[in-house]
C-alpha cells in the first residue's frame, strides 16, 4: 500500500501524531473557511508544499495516491455543472451549462481539494498505528479500538491469503472469461469467509494461552518534543486559518 510506505518512510515520522493531526484539522477548517475558490486553492498549494517539501513525500507517489479521488471529483462535478431542464416549446429534456452551476463546481472542487490535501498530509506522514494510539488518548470506545487494532493486523494476513489464492486461480485459467472470474471470485470469497472464523478462533486460543482476561492492552509509543511539535503545529495551523479568513 502506497500510503503505508510513505507514512513509515517520511521525514516527519518521529513528529508527535497529535501535532500532525492538529495541523491537518487546521487545514480542514481553513478549506471550509475559505470564502472564494482562489483562496481555497492557495490553501491546497500550501498544504501540498508542506507535504512535499517539509515531510519529503515524493511528488509522483503523492499524485498516484490522490488519483482515484480526482476521478470521483470529476464525475460528480460533471453533474453539478450541467442542469437538466425541459425545453419550453417542445418539452424535450435538455442539458445546459449554467453560470451558477459553474460557480458551484469551482467552490466545491476547491474546497474538496483542500480537504483532500489535509487528509493526505495526515495519512502520508503518520502510520495508522500512531493514529490509533491518538484515538485511544481521545477516549474512543474501547470496543472500536480493539476492532481497529485487530483489523489492521489481520488486513495483511488476509491480503496475503487473497493474493496467493488469486495467483493459484489465475495459473489455472480461473479468470479467463467473465463467467469463470465470477465463479473464481465466489470460491475465493467463500474460502476467505471460512478463514474469518478459523483465524478468530485461533487468535482467541492464543490469547487464552497467554492468560488473557479480556481487553487487549498496548504500550503507548512515546515521542520526544511532543509539546514543542504541538505548539508549532498550532501556530502554523492558526496562521493557515487566519490567512484563509483574511484573504477571502
Amino acid at each position, binding site marked *: 500500500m502506497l500510503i503505508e510506505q510513505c507514512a513509515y518512510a517520511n521525514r516527519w515520522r518521529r513528529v508527535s501524531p497529535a501535532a500532525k493531526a492538529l495541523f491537518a484539522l487546521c487545514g480542514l477548517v481553513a478549506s471550509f473557511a475559505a470564502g472564494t475558490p482562489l483562496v481555497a486553492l492557495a490553501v491546497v498549494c500550501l498544504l501540498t508544499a508542506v507535504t512535499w517539501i517539509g515531510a519529503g513525500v515524493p511528488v509522483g507517489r503523492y499524485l498516484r495516491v490522490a488519483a482515484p479521488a480526482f476521478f470521483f471529483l470529476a464525475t460528480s462535478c460533471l453533474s453539478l455543472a450541467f442542469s*437538466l431542464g425541459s425545453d419550453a416549446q417542445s418539452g424535450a429534456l435538455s442539458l445546459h451549462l449554467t453560470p451558477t452551476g459553474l460557480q458551484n463546481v469551482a467552490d466545491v472542487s476547491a474546497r*474538496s481539494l483542500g*480537504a483532500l490535501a489535509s487528509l493526505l498530509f495526515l495519512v502520508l506522514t503518520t502510520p495508522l498505528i500512531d493514529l490509533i494510539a491518538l484515538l485511544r488518548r481521545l477516549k474512543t470506545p474501547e470496543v472500536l479500538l480493539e*476492532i481497529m487494532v485487530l483489523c489492521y*493486523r489481520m*488486513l495483511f494476513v488476509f491480503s496475503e491469503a487473497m493474493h496467493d489464492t488469486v495467483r493459484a486461480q489465475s495459473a489455472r485459467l480461473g479468470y479467463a472469461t467473465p463467467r469463470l472470474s465470477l465463479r473464481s471470485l465466489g470460491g475465493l470469497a467463500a474460502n476467505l469467509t471460512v478463514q474469518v*472464523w478459523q483465524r*478468530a478462533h485461533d487468535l482467541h486460543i492464543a490469547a487464552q494461552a497467554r492468560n488473557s482476561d479480556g481487553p487487549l492492552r498496548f504500550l503507548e509509543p512515546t515521542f520526544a518534543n511532543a509539546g514543542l511539535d504541538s505548539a508549532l503545529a498550532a501556530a502554523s495551523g492558526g496562521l493557515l486559518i487566519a490567512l484563509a479568513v483574511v484573504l477571502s
Partner: protein
Amino acid sequence: MHIMEGFLPIEHAVGWAVASMPFVAYGIGSIKKQIDANPEQRMLLGVAAAFTFVLSALKLPSVTGSCSHPTGTGLGALLFGPAAMAPIGLVVLLFQALLLAHGGLTTLGANLFSMAIVGPFAAAALFRLARRLTLSFAVSVFIAASVADLLTYVTTSAQLAWAFPDPTGGFVTSFAKFAGIFAITQIPLAISEGLLTVVIFNALARFNPQELKDMNVVRPPELRA
C-alpha cells in the same frame, strides 16, 4: 460509492455524522453484550472487519466494462447481522480513508449512513421477507445483496442531491442527474454483486455446511441442495 473528502457542505457533513451516531452506539452496545456472553466474539469482529476491507479491494467483472469493487454490505449483514455492521463499517470506512485516501474524514458520517446502515438493514430485512415468501435460498440471497447494493447507491445519490439541489429543478432533478451518472456503473455492479454473493453462499454450503449452520443463516435441511 464513497463521497470524497470535503465534498459535502459542513452542515451536511455534521448532520449525517449525527444521524449515524445512534446506530453506531447501538451497534457497540450490542457487540459489548455479545462479547460478555461469548468472549470469542472479540476476535471475530476485528477479523470480520479485515475481511470486509480486503473484500472491497477485489475487482468485480462488470457488463459495461467498468471494473468496480463489491461493497460486501449484503454479505456482511447476512453473516454478522445488521446491527454489528455499523461499528464494523465505521472501522472499514475509516481505514479506507486513512490507508487508501478513498472517502474521507468529513464525509465519514454520510458514507457510513449509506454503506453501513441503509445497505445492511435493507439486506437483512429483504432476506427475511424473501424467506417468508418461501422464495428459494439462492433467490433470497441474490435479492438481498443486489438490492442492498442498489439502495446504498440511491442513498448516496440522495445525499448528494440534497446537498446540491439543481438551480432550476431542485432536489428531484439533481437526484436524477446523480443517480443517472452512477447508474452506468452501479446497476451492472449490483447484479454482479448479487450473483457473487449467491456463488459465495453456494460454495460455503457445499464445503462448509457446519460453519454456515453455526452462523444461523440457513436451516439444516437446505444445505443438502
